């Protein structure tokens, strides 16, 4: 069905922006009188080859993969849920608030799933308003989900400072989940079970979107809402479902990050992973397998890059420059590969 040259072409189209961005980044490093070879070597060594770095990269991948799974659901359904950061943070706060109490009263095999379920539900609920506005009034969900992110971040801060504040600490933060009560580690490493949950969720989402009737319905809605109406799909229900699943998975990402890594949320904490994952999902063209690859590459880049930037005496923001370059070249290759098509059709 898909032949080899086609696969190679797609691979090239996906990898080319990455390679071009790294090349361009190297030029920038040269201009700044830094050694690009040692810079990139440090990234590989600290993010991928060292035992500790690899474990950190894998741990970092867990929330990113869950966010990506959520984005795939929404994007394939043609709904631009750009509010994953707010959904992530609110769910994280709820998890941090509930988990210590649950862990104290229930066995861990029940307490942890319950906390994750609550996170999923809270995030899904946070997306209900944009879903309603989209389905009922056709309000652009890009705007509403972004707005809800700002509200979500503020609300999360408020919750941390008032009802969920741990009076025992000086800076505002929630109660801390004891290390023993957190997600179990894998095979004596520092990587927690969240990575497995994330990988399973992502593969499940990929399978559901490509191989089930529900996934096809969502894809029809995403491909053309007019067709969805013509063939009689329940557009309102599907819109709510896609938003709910997408946000819920983003919430699960927040829960996993808290239950696996931090155990608490501080008032100023907002990693804003969502905005970094969105381009990766595009880079992967909504394909689950490709997302795993790009997320891992990105995790290596950000974990190894922290050390590399410190060693090269560059601010951490230099990594954002690399990410931005990837995006620019992504857009360029997209444009260039679309052009011959347009010429043929025009």
């Amino acid at each position, binding site marked *: *069905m898909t032949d080899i040259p086609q696969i190679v072409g797609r691979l090239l189209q996906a990898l080319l922006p990455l390679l071009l961005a790294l090349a361009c980044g190297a030029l920038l490093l040269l201009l700044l009188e830094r050694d690009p070879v040692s810079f990139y070597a440090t990234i590989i060594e600290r993010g991928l080859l060292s035992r500790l770095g690899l474990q950190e990269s894998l741990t970092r991948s867990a929330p990113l993969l869950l966010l990506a799974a959520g984005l795939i659901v929404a994007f394939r359904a043609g709904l631009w849920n750009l509010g994953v950061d707010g959904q992530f943070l609110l769910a994280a706060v709820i998890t941090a608030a509930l988990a210590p109490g649950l862990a104290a009263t229930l066995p861990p095999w029940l307490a942890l799933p319950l906390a994750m379920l609550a996170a999923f539900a809270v995030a899904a609920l946070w997306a209900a308003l944009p879903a309603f506005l989209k389905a009922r009034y056709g309000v652009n969900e890009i705007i509403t989900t972004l707005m809800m992110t700002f509200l979500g971040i503020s609300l999360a801060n408020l919750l941390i400072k008032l009802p969920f504040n741990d009076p025992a600490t000086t800076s505002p933060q929630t109660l801390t989940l004891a290390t023993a009560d957190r997600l179990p580690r894998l095979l004596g490493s520092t990587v927690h079970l969240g990575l497995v949950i994330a990988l399973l969720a992502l593969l499940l989402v990929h399978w559901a979107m490509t*191989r*089930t*009737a*529900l996934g*096809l*319905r969502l894809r*029809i809605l995403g*491909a*053309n809402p*007019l*067709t969805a*109406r*013509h*063939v*009689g*799909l*329940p557009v309102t229900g599907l819109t709510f479902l896609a938003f709910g699943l997408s946000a819920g998975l983003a919430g699960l990402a927040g829960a996993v990050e808290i239950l696996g890594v931090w155990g608490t949320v501080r008032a100023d904490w907002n990693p804003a992973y969502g905005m970094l994952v969105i381009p990766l999902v595009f880079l992967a063209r909504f394909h689950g397998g490709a997302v795993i690859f790009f997320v891992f590459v990105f995790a290596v880049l950000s974990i190894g890059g922290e050390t590399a930037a410190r060693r090269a005496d560059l601010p951490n923001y230099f990594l954002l420059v690399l990410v931005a370059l990837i995006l620019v070249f992504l857009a360029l290759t997209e444009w260039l590969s679309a052009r011959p098509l347009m010429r043929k059709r025009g």
Partner: protein
Amino acid sequence: MSAQHQGKAPPLIRFEQVTKRYPGVLANDAITLDLHAGEIHALLGENGAGKSTLIALLSGMQQPDAGRLLIDGQAVRFSSPRAALQAGIGTVYQHSALVPSLTVLENLMLGRRWWQGRRQSATRRRFTALCNDLGVRLPADALLSSLSLGERQMVEIVKALWEGRRLLILDEASAMLTSAAVSDLQRSLTRLAAKGMAILFVTHKLPEALAFGDRVSILRAGRLVASRSAADLHRRGAEQAQSEIISLMFDAPSTATAAPAPPPSFQEKAPVLRVQGLRAACGEQEPQLDGIDFSLSAGEILGVAGIDGNGQRQLAEALAGQRTTLAGRIELGGEAVQAKSVPQRMKRGLRYLTDDRLGEGSLPAFPISLNLLLKRVGDAPFWRQGVEQPREIEAYAQQTISAHNIRAPGPHTPLGSLSGGNVQKLLLARELEGQPRVVIYNKPTYGLDFQTQQLAQEAIRRQAASGVAALLISPDLDEILALSHRVAVMAEGRIVGIVNNGPDARQTVGRLVVGGTA
């Protein structure tokens, strides 16, 4: 009001043997036509007669394949709409190009180059002067969305007059207007003509053409079949003039060798579809579907004629369930279905073949196999417990492709790479699958090659012969008369008459289409 141009002066615009061809269509066939300053020239024609092409040629959107366009006796060639505008030709199109959220004045200042000033005072003076020319008062600073449709139309005209000071073209300008607004429009156009402008009033409404025009020309199948002065028409009396023009617009061409095959016979039985007082939700820019009454028996084909865009699509969508019913009843086999969803109506045997084949009827980027099953997603045997069964889906697609002679490399080919004819074969196969009871065909042969047209018409006949009731919406009156038992005529969202097909049907339908009475 009558033509007062001097015999010697060359006409403002002359079409000389102008021909324009599109793939498979001769849209304008050696048309020779004069437009004089100070004259309102009404151009009549039914769907596909070539009116739009003629406007496109005049306004610089298209260039003729043969023949010449002369202005003041000089041959010209418009390379772009801007060139036509600079020659003084302004056009008001059927569909509004104004921005509702801007004020009248802002709308008029749109489209200026960046180096051109933004001075409002000059624009305002010009606006007032043009309004005086038209004899209307318009609020310059009101939001366009607060104006009535008639006032918006006037703003469109002002915009067209801004540069087009010699010829004003109005394309179906009265389609959405109330009768009071139409007479305002007539008064304004008469004033403009008196000031020496030429006006080309393109319409399908006979009464308006007769009321407005100093001269009435009739297009049919790309040819100019007649051109009559108002004086000439008045001399012969309104009734006879109307009959003559209707014949010119609609009569079967004398060159037709074979009479169309008679529609298949059917026995009158209890109606399988009954529609009473149907009113449906329609947008502001759409015809308002209202008061629809008709019934349909098994095996009967009811043609729906009328100028395109008079509510045919809204009717089809309301019946199919894509549009909310606001009032009235739709009974399918005795059961009220107006509150039922699209799939519920489909399960009861109602099928809708849409005219928007690629826009809503299918997904061009998806494979043929999934497009065939778009309306049955989740159904066994293609999905089991919600999981796709690729083998079943592929086998079904393979079988449909060969059974319906669809030219395609295979079931996985994206539908978008098929020809229009093959797309329609695929959609026909999809809608007629299983046991349909009522099928709505919306423009089933429109824009297709001859062979697929024959194939589609054959399918409609065959279905009817096997007892399926059909609603046949078509812009092609010949097709409707060749296939239907009865013909309903739609105008402005209503059914204005239902005619039994027979020798006199063409005249009667034609009369209804152009706004007369049966």
